[in-house]
């Protein structure tokens, strides 16, 4: 299984499960599609935490597999899938440790909140491969950090440390790596079960920033 899904105390743990780098393959997206449908009708679920198995969140899509199977319809479905997660009424929190780049960073950007370890490395390096971020990453970065930053990081394709991501507003909290999951759990319990992404700034100030202070 590319994804390990477990519900514990009403909190859904979505673990990217292809260590060491938790690559997002076509199988991953297939499993993700089934899972999102399952989550939509899961009773009593109050929050979702997305994280990676082992040291890393994920290094993103398998580029060779992707280039061998360019399929616009499938890509658009993946894109809609991420967009559906953003529309969930229960909070979706990405707990980011280690590497989180490309499509994996896009997945995290579609979450409502991002908790990040100090040693995390983030970025959208697609332009280095003559590609572009294809699953909404550009728009999400523009919304969180402004379009100037979106142009800069997607065209440069450089990776950057958690601290820079925090300054740009691309992650919400940065903590030592051992504290990422515990903190994500606290947020998952504290946040209301019914949220509206329109009011992200409100939740951030009321729940997330004070708990980290």
């Amino acid at each position: 299984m590319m994804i390990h899904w477990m519900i514990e105390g009403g909190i859904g743990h979505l673990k990217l499960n292809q260590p060491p780098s938790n690559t997002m393959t076509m199988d991953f997206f297939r499993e993700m599609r089934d899972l999102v449908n399952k989550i939509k009708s899961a009773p009593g679920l109050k929050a979702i935490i997305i994280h990676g198995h082992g040291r890393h969140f994920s290094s993103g899509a398998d580029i060779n597999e992707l280039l061998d199977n360019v399929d616009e319809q499938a890509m658009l479905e993946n894109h809609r899938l991420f967009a559906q997660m953003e529309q969930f009424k229960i909070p979706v929190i990405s707990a980011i440790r280690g590497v989180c780049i490309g499509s994996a960073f896009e997945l995290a950007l579609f979450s409502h909140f991002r908790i990040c370890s100090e040693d995390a490395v983030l970025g959208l390096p697609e332009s280095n491969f003559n590609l572009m971020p294809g699953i909404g990453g550009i728009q999400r970065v523009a919304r969180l950090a402004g379009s100037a930053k979106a142009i800069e990081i997607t065209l440069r394709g450089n990776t950057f440390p958690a601290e820079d991501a925090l300054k740009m507003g691309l992650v919400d909290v940065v903590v030592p790596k051992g504290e990422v999951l515990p903190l994500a759990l606290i947020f998952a319990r504290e946040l209301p079960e019914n949220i509206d992404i329109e009011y992200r700034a409100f939740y951030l100030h009321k729940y997330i920033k004070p708990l980290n202070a």
Partner: protein
Amino acid sequence: MSQIDFATFEILNEVGIITLDLPPGNYLPIPGFIPLKIFKQWIGSDHLKGLIIRGRGKNFSAGGNLEQLFKESGPPDTMQCLMDEGIELLNCIQNLEIPVISVISGVCFGGGLEIALASHIRVASENALLAFPEVSHNLMPGMGGTVRLPGVIGWSYAVNMILGGDIINAKAGKEMGLIDYIVPKDQPFTFALNLMQKMTRDRPLKVIKSIMKSLKNARTLSPEAAMAEETKLFCKLAADEAERRKTEEA
């Protein structure tokens, strides 16, 4: 190098550079300070990967020359015509599918700020001053400033700047998100050129255009349409890249 009355155009390492060229203030004699036809000729040349706009000397631009504007405008519809040319030029700049950086030294007022707002990235020198002073002449920003400014810094700051007409410095501009980078006063152009090269040097033009187009779509299309369009742009690049790799192997 190409020159018209108020501006100069040159190309450096695939980057176009427009210099507003009426020092010291680089006033804009008319709203359409570069005729659209000439602007399109400049931009169409040599497959540019980026555009930098700066002012000659110490200032970016002090904005429209009001004396001249009132003298030349005559009846209201003549004024409307002149403004339309300016609006069309700025829209054209904002919609370019290559990154546009404004290099803001010294004064950046009125029409000057309108140009900076139509750019995608704003680099300011530490001594930059920004304002929409139109209100003190019983006027208002007329080339899209009232539309673009709230989009960049939010309504609260924008109402303050446009109704108050106050001058703000680079630091305040950075805090409210109007300025992306502040650099020492003799370095903004070098900094901007360096940033532009980091973004464009190793990138094929089609990658640059696809990314810029995707960002533009977010502004002009519905979220669903922008999503579909992005997927299409991505798949085109991916198909090209797959093809290129095959050819390379063969």
